[in-house]
């Protein structure tokens, strides 16, 4: 795993100049409706990239293209390229299932599996690829991931309880632990804190900083302050005149918030609309 420090400057470039995710002319459709137009961005490893923008601008649609979850909806499709370590995940013959084990996802609403215990929730993804698994080994992995997700101390006495018996914030960290267990390279977070109270939100934000040491994180948020607090790079999206979302500006978070190049970014950041 790459352990290089945070993103340095605009266009999400890190000192080494390498990128883990690169989108090339990415378009997302629902049937014939173009929802996201022509996105080009490059994401550095071990960085936190925030995607912000007003409601309906296609933030969630875009992030769902990153692990081929967009195409799960009926009639939804994607054109263009998305390179993960140089390999196009939309290339012919690429199995979306294998893409999703390398690019994990955390959703807007915590969605633990209610019929599984806390432990089984964490290792649910791991168990998929195995015919049988040793209980002891699974418990070890679960403990490691729960610690990594800063949840272990709160749930170590409730490991056998249902995943839905936890509080909302705990459930969301359980979902993060579940995503970590599969050992992805990238973790996508689609408004992970929008259903949580401020304290639970703060915990998740702290957690993201820790996780960025080992993973690359892309987060969609409607909360500009959150983007400012957690991210290294920020992408600002807006709905165009044709109702398709587009990437207006993408650069280092500091630059986007203090010295935006595009007038629309400036208007949004300063709260003129949105």
């Amino acid at each position: 795993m790459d352990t290089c420090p945070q993103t340095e400057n605009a266009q999400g470039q890190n000192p080494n100049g390498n990128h883990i995710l690169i989108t090339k002319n990415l378009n997302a459709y629902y049937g014939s409706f173009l929802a996201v137009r022509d996105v080009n961005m490059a994401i550095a490893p071990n960085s936190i990239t925030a995607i912000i923008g007003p409601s309906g601008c296609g933030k969630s649609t875009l992030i769902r293209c990153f692990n081929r979850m967009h195409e799960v909806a009926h009639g939804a499709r994607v054109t263009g390229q998305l390179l993960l370590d140089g390999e196009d995940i939309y290339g012919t013959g690429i199995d979306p299932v294998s893409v999703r084990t390398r690019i994990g996802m955390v959703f807007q609403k915590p969605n633990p599996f209610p019929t599984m215990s806390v432990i089984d929730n964490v290792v649910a993804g791991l168990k998929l690829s195995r015919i049988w698994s040793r209980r002891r080994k699974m418990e070890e992995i679960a403990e490691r991931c729960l610690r990594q997700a800063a949840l272990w101390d709160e749930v170590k006495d409730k490991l056998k309880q249902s995943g839905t018996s936890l509080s909302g914030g705990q459930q969301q960290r359980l979902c993060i632990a579940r995503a970590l267990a599969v050992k992805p390279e990238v973790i996508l977070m689609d408004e992970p804190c929008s259903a949580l109270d401020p304290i639970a939100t703060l915990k998740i934000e702290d957690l993201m900083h820790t996780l960025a040491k080992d993973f690359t994180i892309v987060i969609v948020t409607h909360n500009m302050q959150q983007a400012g607090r957690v991210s290294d790079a920020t992408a600002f999206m807006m709905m165009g005149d044709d109702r398709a979302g587009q990437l207006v500006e993408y650069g280092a978070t500091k630059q986007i918030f203090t010295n935006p190049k595009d007038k629309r970014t400036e208007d949004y950041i300063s709260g003129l609309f949105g």
Partner: protein
Amino acid sequence: MALNRRNRKASRLGDAVFSRLSLVASLAIIFILVNILVILIMQAWPTLSEFGASFLWTSDWNTMTDEYGALPAIYGTVVSSLLAILIAVPVSFGAAVFLTEIAPLWLRSTASFIIEMLAAIPSIIIGMWGVFVLVPIVRDPIQKWLGNAFGWMPIFQGNQLGFGFLAAGIMLALMIIPIITSMSRDVLRAVPQSQREAMLALGATRWETISKAVLPFGRSGLVSAVILGLGRALGETMVVAMVIGNVYSIRFSLFSPGSTIPSKIAGEFGETLPGTLQMSSLLGLALILFAITLIVNIIARLLVWRMSAVKMGRL
């Protein structure tokens, strides 16, 4: 102001009328239920006092010597219903999964509509179809093939008549498949999309998503669907009476003819004089069926209640 007051009075009167009416309606339901039970017990009393509990485990049905036992009918009811469930559950769950998870959108509503139409066919019509179409098929090739391949098992031995437990089980399965399918389809449709996405995002295939996220989430609803089907199978009368062969004995082969509680009652009720021990025994059979369905439903409630307790987080 005055208008206002009158309006409120009127609505209060409406409230009172409505609440009385709904009270009467709900009491009527309870009254009917209790009444059925009381009448059954009263009418079955001669048999219960004559044979006592041994009515449950004796196998005679002799109008000459006036000796009656319920065991063959209980056996037939349980065997044909379990056979029906065994056949119907995999088919119904498979169809429900196909209709909610796999089929293209245009096919879903059409196929669901056709399946529900199947449930609307009167059972006497399905029964006639069973006699003329299904029973010959059961005789040859089904029984022939089973007899050849698995003849060493007691349940596949004996004369290959067509009429019997096997035909009854298959007919019952056909009758309960639409109910179980449409109910489990509703259950699976109610599984939140977020559960599917959670499993998919972990790198699950479509089948893993269904088996590890969708079906477990809906399991309490699926159990209710099965129990509802079982209840229907236990009480189904006409179709069974037409294909089971109506022999009052206990044989272990699924090829042999038998009787169920409803088919026995339906077959003999018309030619039995009121006040006789035979009539009382038929009502005794009815009482047993009542008890069986009640027990099945109570077990189902407990199961569903336990499973939804799990879902609420109390494991």
